[in-house]
């Protein structure tokens, strides 16, 4: 029996101050993004195509249309934003910078409010990362920015025949057991000032990927960051430079570079619910 006050687990209820904070975060973000020449896009809640791209189909909430075709509720905005710009809006606009402010929904009843930006056809992640930084600066929060490159663990895995799971679980002991000096240097790398000495000792194929992190770190205006070259997580689409903004146990933002139909783009998503919690706590 459901009691009258119950709401499904994972759903969100904001009222009074938290609803006001949510509105303020979205206003600040849209202001920053409009100034950076982004335009807003609002995509349908229902989609025919999410199941083609989502990593774990079990996360999708399914319904059916009038012809009994399968529909799902939006569980990822980037997939639909990129597809709609390419396949449906291609003739209407050539604009490349888009942002969205809309929730995603996952099985069984999880709701997540997000603010995202996609810069279609752009290869330089610093372009969108700086907009994410400008938003957190405008919100007067300073999460730790983690700069990673998904290619590095993949290349090390190929070079040394190491299972990618060791990177996923950050199994330091087993990585150090390989007794490879340059691998140890990468494990301990954290600060930008140390990156050149590590670039010197790593194999050539990894040099290039570390250089990419270095250039990204130099191109952004933010001082609270760490370099985490071995971070690895199974990504839905990010395949090279990648970042997270973290504070305590929360992730405020994620973003990176991705390729769709041979077009390279960069983008990010801010997790509004976590930022609301943070701003609510600091008031």
């Amino acid at each position, binding site marked *: 029996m459901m009691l009258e006050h119950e709401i499904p687990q994972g759903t969100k209820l904001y009222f009074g101050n938290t609803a006001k904070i949510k509105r303020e975060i979205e206003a600040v973000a849209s202001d920053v993004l409009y100034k950076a020449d982004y335009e807003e896009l609002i995509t349908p809640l229902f989609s025919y195509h999410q199941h083609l791209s989502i990593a774990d189909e079990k996360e999708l909430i399914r319904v059916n249309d009038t012809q009994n075709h399968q529909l799902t509720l939006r569980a990822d905005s980037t997939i639909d934003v990129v597809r709609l710009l390419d396949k449906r809006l291609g003739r209407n606009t050539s604009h490349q910078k888009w942002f969205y402010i809309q929730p995603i929904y996952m099985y069984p009843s999880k709701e997540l409010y997000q603010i995202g930006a996609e810069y279609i056809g752009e290869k330089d992640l610093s372009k969108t990362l700086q907009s994410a930084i400008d938003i957190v600066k405008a919100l007067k929060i300073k999460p730790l920015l*983690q700069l990673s490159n998904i290619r590095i663990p993949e290349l090390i895995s190929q070079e040394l025949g190491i299972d990618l799971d060791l990177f996923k679980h950050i199994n330091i002991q087993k990585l150090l057991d390989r007794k490879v000096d340059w691998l140890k240097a990468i494990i301990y790398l954290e600060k930008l000032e140390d990156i050149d000495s590590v670039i010197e000792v790593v194999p050539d194929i990894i040099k290039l990927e570390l250089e990419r992190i270095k250039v990204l770190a130099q191109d952004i205006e933010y001082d609270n960051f760490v370099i985490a070259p071995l971070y690895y997580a199974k990504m839905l689409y990010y395949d090279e430079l990648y970042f997270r903004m973290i504070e305590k146990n929360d992730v405020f933002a994620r973003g990176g570079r991705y390729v769709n139909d041979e077009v390279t783009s960069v983008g990010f998503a801010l997790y509004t619910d976590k930022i609301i919690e943070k701003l609510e706590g600091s008031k």
Partner: protein
Amino acid sequence: MLTVALPKGRIAEDTLEIFASIFGEEFKFDDRKLILETPNFKFLLVRNQDVATYVYHQAADIGVVGLDTLEEQGLDVIRLLDLNKGVCKVSIGMRKGEKLDLNKPELKVATKMVNITKRYFAERAVAVDIIKLYGSIELAPLVGLADMIVDVVETGATMKQNGLEVVADIMTSSTYLIANKNSYFEKKSEVLDIFEKISKVVEND
């Protein structure tokens, strides 16, 4: 400052001994106290099954817990170091003389470790009816509650005394030093420093 979650009992004592040998001072919880604060560490005394939960939610930055518990809970934490202590196996036990027959249409298995059991039999495409128990698992096959049990085995003495024997091993477990994923990136030098110091002690053991 790092917060360290330790499971009550032998593992906490062993771990505090390792810290004592590293830092040359005694680390001891006052009677019945659950928090021990020192200038560089805050130790929390928690139930074994709760260690990974404290670390996952960052109530502790690092912790010490058995691999069997980690596998059972499946929480996304960093496995920093195998401490090579508390070595045991997660095994299948049956009544003495009985053989494990995976061709039966359905097996009844009693266990505390539902997820490990589910995974083991699912990988072998065997249908199982898992009965979750909280203790005295060895009793289940004796009274016809289950065909077999999945349980932690150290010496095998408890099984033997109850007329059971190990018919298959599922995994070997030992205690691991674990860390919270965000703590690792936020406090990397501190985490790697304690990792190195504990590794040296473990290597010399």
